């Protein structure tokens, strides 16, 4: 997808080519976000119990609002930087760094969590191959309980394969993404239809709702974990950088993606509670969708193994987005002097960003090993994932609101619904009500994470602090302000972005808006 462009100074600069279509853009997102349900179902069931559908629906409503915010920002600023770029532009360098470090944490956890879950789905076949379950390998080592070295080694091998593939520059093609995405949609739709028609027992759902309702602590814990089934909206902005006419395509594809994922997440949790006891999912946290598929009549004998294989594949692809996302993010951050361009160094033969691939994949490896020393690796990684995601999303909402005031000139092909317009410093601006409600919603989930996740509340801020130490050292070395921003020419950048996206109508509107602003300023002077 990368092409080399000669700059005015004669230097060669790499740029992403815009050749992703509507369908490709949708499938790109679905291969990333759609995989989350395969991980989150078991984790959330273990805590939210009979109220799992409720917490998925609540987290889903917050997620829809986050999706609206990303759609507006990604179509207005179609660059791959995503959340940190929006924060950098709206709130300044320091807050861009905070959002970047939260997202970087999520990318490394993404590698660890999705590789762990991918091997978990592969372990569905273990009883048929080895005659024993993966749980039978768990052991106690000194004060550490339920340590599973076999599962840990499987995960490390998968991450090793990912590192090798990415260093060699072999990435999954958009065609593979589309095939896997279609297979997942067809499989999930088939499971939902067959499940609701032939296996779903409303009385079981109602009974679990009434008799197995969780405690307040578990409800909060479960709802904060439910947000991980909707993580991956960054892929919308990543796709925006490589999409033709992003202003037209991004709103359509991202809104469809948001609602598809929401419907599947709520449908699966509701179906699950009406087919099996929540405890079955809690016991099979490593492959919940395969267990659900296996329990269905008529197709269960084939659907179980098929869903397990497909789950392993899509989760592996999703783990790969962590490696690729970390490279894109570090590249974007280095362009704005948030981190050193040292990270951008490419491999002399394979032309891949070798340093970021190795560093952040190794962070993922360390996180995997440490998480397997806790009683539940999936739970620990889910904890951390939720922290990074909620912190990053809170910042994006703040940036969305701030940008409505500081940059009302950039054309927004899509706007978050429900706005209140008023005059601010002589200009007409509109305040996004859903942006404010969404910010409060996701901030509440962040508070829940800090309150209820014993590991997340320590390790999450510790990661941000570690990144801050590096950021402060680098900025001081470059004689740049730590808490203040370097002067950026955002207008020139926006014109370049819209020109490269071939959004000439928007470009014209933007130039007209700037001209009108300059005229008004002159009149006042």
């Amino acid at each position, binding site marked *: 997808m990368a092409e080399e462009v000669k700059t005015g100074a004669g230097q060669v600069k790499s740029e992403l080519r815009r050749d992703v279509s509507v369908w490709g853009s949708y499938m790109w997102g679905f291969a990333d976000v759609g995989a989350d349900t395969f991980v989150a179902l078991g984790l959330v069931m273990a805590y939210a119990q009979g109220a799992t559908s409720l917490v998925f629906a609540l987290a889903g409503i917050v997620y829809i609002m986050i999706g609206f915010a990303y759609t507006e920002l990604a179509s207005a600023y179609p660059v791959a930087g995503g959340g940190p770029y929006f924060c950098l532009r709206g709130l300044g360098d320091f807050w861009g760094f905070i959002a970047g470090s939260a997202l970087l944490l999520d990318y490394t956890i993404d590698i660890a969590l999705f590789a762990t879950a991918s091997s978990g789905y592969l372990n569905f076949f273990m009883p048929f191959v080895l005659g024993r379950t993966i749980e039978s390998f768990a052991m106690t080592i000194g004060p550490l309980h339920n340590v599973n070295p076999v599962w840990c080694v499987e995960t490390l091998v998968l991450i090793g394969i990912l590192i090798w593939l990415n260093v060699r520059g072999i990435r999954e093609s958009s065609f593979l993404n589309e095939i896997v995405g279609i297979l997942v949609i067809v499989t999930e739709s088939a499971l939902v239809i067959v499940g609701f028609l032939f296996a779903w*027992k*409303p*009385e079981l759902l109602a009974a679990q709702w009434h008799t197995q309702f969780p405690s307040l602590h578990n409800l909060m814990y479960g709802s904060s974990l439910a947000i991980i089934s909707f993580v991956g909206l960054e892929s919308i902005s990543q796709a925006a950088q490589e999409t033709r006419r992003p202003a037209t395509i991004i709103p*359509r*594809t991202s809104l469809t993606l948001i609602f598809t994922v929401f419907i599947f997440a709520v449908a699966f949790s509701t179906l699950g509670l009406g087919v099996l006891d929540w405890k079955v999912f809690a016991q099979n946290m490593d492959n919940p969708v395969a267990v659900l598929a296996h329990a269905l009549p008529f197709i269960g004998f084939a659907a179980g193994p098929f869903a397990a294989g497909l789950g392993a594949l899509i989760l592996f692809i999703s783990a790969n987005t962590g490696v690729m996302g970390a490279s894109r993010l570090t590249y974007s951050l280095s362009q704005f002097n948030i981190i050193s361009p040292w990270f951008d160094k490419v491999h002399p033969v394979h032309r891949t960003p070798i340093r970021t691939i190795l560093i952040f994949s190794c962070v993922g490896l360390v996180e995997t090993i440490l998480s397997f020393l806790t009683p539940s690796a999936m739970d620990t990684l889910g904890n951390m994932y939720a922290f990074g995601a909620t912190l990053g999303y809170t910042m994006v909402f703040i940036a969305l609101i701030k940008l409505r005031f500081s940059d009302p000139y950039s054309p927004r092909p899509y*706007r978050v619904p429900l706005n209140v317009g008023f005059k601010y410093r002589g200009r007409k601006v509109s305040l996004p009500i859903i942006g404010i409600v969404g910010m409060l919603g996701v901030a509440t989930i962040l508070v829940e994470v800090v309150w209820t996740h014993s590991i997340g509340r320590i390790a999450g801020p510790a990661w941000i602090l570690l990144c801050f130490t590096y950021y402060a050292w680098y900025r001081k070395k470059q004689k740049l302000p730590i808490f203040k921003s370097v002067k950026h020419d955002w207008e020139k950048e926006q014109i370049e972005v819209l020109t490269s996206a071939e959004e000439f109508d928007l470009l014209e509107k933007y130039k007209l808006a700037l001209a009108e602003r300059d005229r008004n300023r002159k009149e006042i002077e």
Partner: protein
Amino acid sequence: MRRAKSTTVGPDYRISRADYYQITVSVLMVILGVVILFRSLQSGISSMTLLVGGGFLGLGCYRLKFVVAYFMERRKCSRR
């Protein structure tokens, strides 16, 4: 830039693969909603199951409203 109030598209709009997928999903949502509601009522009324069935049915109908509006508009245009 303000968005248009109506979200329906004109009769000259060509339906893409993504649109066919969305139409199919909407039809399935209506069918599932009806099945869930019917089965829920059979086993006694429960707020949770009614919410799920009603949710599927309502959302499916809402989405189909746009599809029906589009086809009616197209039919009107072809008669003219």
